[in-house]
């Protein structure tokens, strides 16, 4: 129990990821698949962000410097700053996410135009019919 509490963010990430994964695999509606995909990626972002946190009042790593932008000696302690790298990575990941999302939606539109539905089983049904005729 305590184990779960201590690492709750990781547990949430796992649960979210599983939800997304479930949606991608099981859902019959392609739009829901896409949504699942997004949840999946969001969970990932949570994972990375969690790796960056520091407990105990750590803040954004912006060095307060003097007029010339030189750091004031003695103000730099890694402990005071959270690790920025994961956030930066996730910025990139978000961009990738958005791009994938956009492409997926565009494809959905094309699919809908072609089959007049975005239910996977119906699409497969149509394809089977056309294969015969």
């Amino acid at each position: 129990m305590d184990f779960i509490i201590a690492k709750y963010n990781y547990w949430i990430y796992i649960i979210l990821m599983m939800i997304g994964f479930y949606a991608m695999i099981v859902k019959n509606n392609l739009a829901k698949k896409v949504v699942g995909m997004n949840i999946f990626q969001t969970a990932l972002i949570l994972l990375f962000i969690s790796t960056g946190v520091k407990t105990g009042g750590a803040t954004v790593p912006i060095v307060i410097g003097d007029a010339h932008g030189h750091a004031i000696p003695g103000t730099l302690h890694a402990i005071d700053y959270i690790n920025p790298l994961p956030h930066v990575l996730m910025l990139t990941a978000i961009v990738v996410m958005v791009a994938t999302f956009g492409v997926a939606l565009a494809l959905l539109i094309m699919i809908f135009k072609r089959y007049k539905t975005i239910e996977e089983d119906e699409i497969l049904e149509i394809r089977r019919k056309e294969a015969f005729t």
Partner: protein
Amino acid sequence: MIRRHEDIIIESLARFLTPFIQAFALYVLFLGHYSPGGGFQGGVLMGASFILLVIAYDIIEGKRRITEKFNIVLNATGVMVFSGTGLLCLILGGEFLDYSQLAAILPVGPEEARGLGILAVEIGVEITVAAIMVSIFLDLASAGEHEEALK
């Protein structure tokens, strides 16, 4: 497809809000150096402001504001600014994206130059993100038809 509702409240509210949002977007962009913020966030805000307009009015109106072609150009210019800065450094004899090289053409020291270079990149990013947001939105909202709508 987004139809126009002729709803005076929504429309004027949107018109009223848009400049503030855009100003805030710029603020976020330039604050990026000293606090959370930067090109991505600013860009999203910038794009959102426009999307708000389109939702409040309709796509035709949106087209009047930003044509597809203009949007594309914005798109490309943004990335151009970004990678162009990098290339400039490369031409100035440093590594790709090594902004400290910009000190050669800017009246500042290498550290400042790095800062300014990153600012330039952030601007590029802002433009691109905004344009991309808009074009994705328009593409999807108009089901990919708006190229025809242009003609």
